[in-house]
């Protein structure tokens, strides 16, 4: 077993352990954990059976397996970052809506308090 394989196996195992630990401590949501889990398992399988990568390389007509690996890796990272940007945008938009609602509610509350202060005491109430 070559050094590259050992590095790949170690890396994927560390990732899997970290994922498990983060999930256990409620530091990661399942929907994000899933994609990382798939990636870690993929790396593990390729590290264990490098012949899979070589076959895929010949199948696609590429010369160097490492090129295929780097291409896939960059593509995966690109998509993940894009997804995070999307999620961030959604969260920002929701935060904006919440901020607006908070502002409106605060105004209503202040007004209600003000009205209550200015009204003469209601004799029908105790």
């Amino acid at each position, binding site marked *: 077993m070559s050094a590259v394989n050992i590095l790949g196996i170690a890396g994927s195992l560390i990732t899997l352990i970290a994922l498990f630990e983060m999930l256990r401590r409620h530091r990661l949501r399942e929907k994000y954990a899933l994609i990382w889990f798939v990636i870690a398992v993929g790396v593990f399988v390729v590290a264990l059976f490098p012949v899979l990568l070589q076959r895929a390389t010949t199948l696609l007509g590429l010369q160097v397996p490492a090129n295929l690996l780097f291409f896939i890796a960059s593509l995966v990272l690109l998509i993940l970052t894009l997804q995070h940007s999307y999620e961030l945008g959604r969260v920002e938009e929701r935060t904006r809506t919440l901020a607006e609602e908070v*502002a409106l509610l605060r105004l209503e509350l202040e007004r209600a308090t003000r009205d209550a202060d200015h009204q003469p005491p209601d004799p029908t109430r105790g």
Partner: protein
Amino acid sequence: MQAMPGPSTSVRVLVIVPAWNEQDSVGATVREIRETNPDVDILVVDDGSGDDTVERAAAAGAEVCRLPFNLGVGGAMRTGYRYALRHGYDVAVQIDADGQHDPRYLPTLIAGLDDADIVIGARFARTGDPYVVRGPRRWAMVLLARVLSRLSRTRLTDVTSGFRASDKRAIAVFASHYPAEYLGDTVESLVIAVRTGCRVTQVPVDMRSRSAGQPSSSPVRSAVYLLRAVVALGLALVRRWEESFDEGTTRASITTPEPSVPG
């Protein structure tokens, strides 16, 4: 404040004043609006100011709505439109806190709503106007005006003007969709309005120079402005809104009825 059974004929007008760190001008702006238009209600939306904007606006007699942090003009305006919708106002008018918009034109804008859903107070180009612009910034404004004129089938010359009046229909649209992005608050919101079936028109008004600050005229900034204008416009034209609400918004949150007052 409930609808005052005032002498004015049933049309309830809300003036929305978005303000961010405008302590030096907001008080005067609010007082001037009250003096020139005593029948309107004024809502100052404080966009996370760090100065005395809130205190001075309240002291001048406006209702003040405080955003917990800065959202930009778009956020402040959507807050205002939601307030207008929930309290059943017939007309909402945006007037900037910097004193640029002359509230004496308010009745003119509101009168324009007879044949339109949105009336823009357009800067009247004349000699000696402190707002004469050239170069890329000018091209951006011309491009925006041309495209929006074609879209709305009327002649619009100053689409980046924030001085505008909206009727109930436009208020409902803006309460659910009002972009927070730069230029989105003026340009994209107009595209949204037109594409959801609102009629837009403009009336000429005189703008005053701002109490503080001038639009930058450095060539780089102007070029950036042109680029952002093109991007904002392009996105506005290809986006869809008709069926959707802005993120975090539901039909119920838009149509929440006015809270009933006990007693």
